[in-house]
Every structure is written in structure tokens, then in C-alpha cells.
């Protein structure tokens, strides 16, 4: 044991050496792993600050993913020795909101879009205009689309849950087929939403509660189809005495 009182200035200085924090290497070196997802495997990269990159896996594509990570972040990355706690379950069950993300390097607008998107529940979809309204930029619908197109963490930050209000799924980095596969794996009522949209119905309500919802909202889907009433827009619903659902928060806004 070292003595309580250092015997010399040199000894006292030597004791000023400090240990780097536990697992300091993980503060510097990122890790990545391949995780099984509902629409194919996913490469996911993270540091202690959170997840910062994900890509759909391709055969033998790990090296390319690691190289793109290094190019983008200028940080070393190695295969993970241990899985990130909660990652596999979050990918499998669509609960990306349970994990931490490191979105440094993105604009404040992009971060806001991704945060609003992270709050969309599994099994539901929202229009682009809804995201724009959520972040207080109701007119920035196209910019929302671009920001979602640059989502660095697809699947986990569920940009696939933002769809066109005409009932089609819309664009997706991994291709529209992956977007649809992800949504169907989450049991989104895509066909019903599309069928309603084709009839000009973008909101549904029930006379019992006089609450109006987006058609994929879990509360709306609990209502029997026979007692459901469709609306073109919120004005129409409002004049019929319906108030917006607090869960899916249907918002007036431009269609996209």
C-alpha cells in the first residue's frame, strides 16, 4: 500500500496520475453487429453515446458498412464482442424508441424530424404532413421527406412508418418493397388505409366517443367497421362534433 503522506514532491506528482474511466476504449472505438430484422438483416453501429448508423445487410457487406462508417464519422469501428443490450429485441419488435441515438452531425431540423418519427408507435403510420405539423413546421412537408430519406438509422428510427396520405407507402431508402414488408410485419392495416384513401377518407371516427383518428391508430382499429364514420379532413370531422384523438394526434395540414 502506498503511504498516506507522500515523502517527496516527485512522489506526490506521481500520485496525480489518474486512471482512464472504465471501458474508455468504447468511448473512442465504435462497435457494430448484424441483427436479424423483420425485413432482413440489419448492420447497426454504435458508441457509448448511442446508435449512429444502420443499413440493410447484403451478403458479405459488413466490410463495406464498416468502411462507410469510418468515412462518415472518422472513427475506428470493430465488430462488437458483446451485443448492445436491447438492440436485438428493439429491431425484432419495432421498438426503436427504447434505445439511445447519437445524431451529432445532423441539422436541428433533421434531428427534430427523426425524434418525431421515433414516437410513431409500432403498427401505425403517419402522413409526412403529420411529422411536419408535429415539429411545428407544417409547411415543410417536402423537407420532412428529404430528412427522412437521409435517416442514418433506418428501421430503428422508423421512417418506414411515415407514408403518403394517398394510401401508398411512398419512397424508402431500402426500396418501397422493404418499406411495405416492414409495415406488414408490424401488422399495419395497409390495405384498409389504401382502400379508405381511395374513397377520399383520411380520418375515421366513432359516434360513441365522437373521437376522430388516423385510420391506422390502434384506437380506431378497435372500433367495428360498421360503427365507423369516415372523414375527408378534420374540418369535416369538427363540424360533425368530433374531436381529434389524443393518441394519434391527427393534425390539419397539407396532404403529401
Amino acid at each position: 500500500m502506498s503511504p498516506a503522506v507522500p515523502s517527496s514532491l516527485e512522489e506526490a506528482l506521481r500520485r496525480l496520475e489518474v486512471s482512464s474511466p472504465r471501458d474508455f476504449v468504447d468511448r473512442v472505438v465504435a462497435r457494430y453487429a448484424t441483427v436479424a430484422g423483420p425485413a432482413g438483416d440489419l448492420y447497426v453501429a454504435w458508441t457509448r453515446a448511442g446508435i449512429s448508423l444502420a443499413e440493410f445487410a447484403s451478403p458479405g457487406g459488413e466490410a463495406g458498412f464498416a468502411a462507410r462508417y469510418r468515412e462518415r464519422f472518422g472513427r475506428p469501428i470493430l465488430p462488437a464482442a458483446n451485443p448492445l443490450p436491447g438492440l436485438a429485441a428493439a429491431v425484432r419488435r419495432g421498438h426503436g424508441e427504447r434505445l439511445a441515438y447519437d445524431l451529432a452531425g445532423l441539422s436541428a431540423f433533421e434531428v427534430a424530424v427523426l425524434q418525431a418519427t421515433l414516437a410513431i408507435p409500432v403498427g401505425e403510420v403517419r402522413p409526412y404532413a403529420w411529422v411536419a405539423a408535429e415539429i411545428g413546421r407544417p409547411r415543410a412537408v417536402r423537407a420532412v421527406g428529404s430528412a427522412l430519406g437521409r435517416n442514418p438509422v433506418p428501421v430503428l428510427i422508423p421512417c418506414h412508418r411515415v407514408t403518403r396520405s394517398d394510401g401508398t407507402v411512398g419512397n424508402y431508402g431500402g426500396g418501397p418493397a422493404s418499406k411495405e414488408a416492414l409495415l406488414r410485419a408490424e401488422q399495419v392495416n395497409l390495405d384498409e388505409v389504401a382502400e379508405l384513401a381511395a374513397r377520399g377518407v383520411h380520418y375515421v371516427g366513432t359516434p360513441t366517443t365522437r373521437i376522430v383518428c388516423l385510420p391506422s391508430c390502434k384506437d380506431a382499429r378497435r372500433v367495428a367497421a360498421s360503427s365507423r364514420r369516415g372523414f375527408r379532413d378534420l374540418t369535416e370531422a369538427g363540424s360533425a362534433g368530433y374531436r381529434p384523438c389524443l393518441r394519434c394526434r391527427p393534425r390539419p395540414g397539407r396532404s403529401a
Partner: protein
Amino acid sequence: MNAGPGRRGRGTRRDSGLQRNPGRGVLIGVRALKVTSDDEICRQLVEDLDVGFAALVEAYGRTAFSVAARTAPETEDAEDLAAEAFLRAYRALRRYDAARIRQLRVRPWLVTIVLNVSRNARREATRRPRAGRLPATDEPVAQGREASELVEVAAAADELAAHLRALPAKQRAAVVLRHVVDLPLSEIAAVLGCAEGTARSHVARGLAALRAAYGTATTGALPPAAVAGERRSTR
């Protein structure tokens, strides 16, 4: 290891504590770890930059963290600074070819980067003061020691750290590199960009300034705790 009072051997400094070996995920005593030399790290960096870099962080994390903690303003977070220095080092290495990496003297090169980051933080801090955390001294809490004595030792260490921070840049760097993280004079000279003799005199002047700061010109043994105690009693 049970060294007598005042004789905590240099070679045994890293004996205490366990360190995680990330490659295998097992806990092993640090003593059992083969000391990774600069040459070995260079070889690994050339072979696989990222694997080699993880080895570099393992080997010099403590040195980088200590240099950051003892040269930057105490309002700065040493972990942030050390991590930033390592990332700068990595970005530089990505641009170096194999020949340049093989010739690299890794530790002094890395320490130079840490000092640059630390100096930038110092400049920033004078422009934009902010609240921060104070790194704890790396002194294991011994059992059976009087609490008052521990407090006194900790207070003395903080006082010494403050005096160290107040030294002129070259002296501060020289003293920290020589006596806190135990670099040889040849590497200190490489870091400071001067001759070894000059590096030695920076160290000596720094030590002298520290002794003077305690209000005593005694050379040799100087127990800061005792000095701190005396100062308190004269107030």
C-alpha cells in the same frame, strides 16, 4: 505488493486494479498483460488500422487521460479531451501510409496531440467559462487510514494539481510528462520539440517553481500534506 512507506516502486505502479481485455472479454490482472510496445502497436496499425488503434487506446488511454486531466483547466472534462485527442490521432493515421506509420514514435506523437487539445481547451475556457467536473485523484481508499488524514492527503493533491496548472505551459507539460505519467526525457524532448537537456531544465524549473509555490525552497523530500497542514495552522 507491500512497499515500505514512501517507496512505491515505479515498476509496480500499475499493479492494482483489473483491466478489461476487449478482444477476449475476460478480466485479467494488468500485470499479466504483455506491455504493448510502440513497435508492436505500429505493426498492428499497419496490419489493421482499427484493431491496432484499439490496442493503442488500451495501451495509452491512461497516459492520455492523465495528461489531459493535469494540463487542461479543471473545468474541462478530461475524458472528453482524451477521447477527442484519440479521434484526431485516428483521423491523422487514416491519411498516413504504411511507411510513415512504421516510423512513428507513437507515444510522444499521441501525447503531443493531447497537449494540443488541452491547450485549445484552455484557450476556449478563457473565452467561455463553464462549469465542469474535477477528475478524482487515482488514490485507492485504503482501509484503516484515519479519515482526517485521507481528507488531508486529497486536499494536498488538489492543491498540488492547482499549482501544477498554474505553471508556464512548457514547465507544466515537462513536469506532467516526466513525473505524472513517467515519460523518458527523450520522449519529452520529442513532444516539446527541444533537446533533451532543454527538456531536463524545463522539468527542473517546473519542480523548483512548485516548491516555491509551497513557500519553501527545501530540495528533496517535501511532504505537501505536511506543508498544507502547516499553512492551515498559521492562519
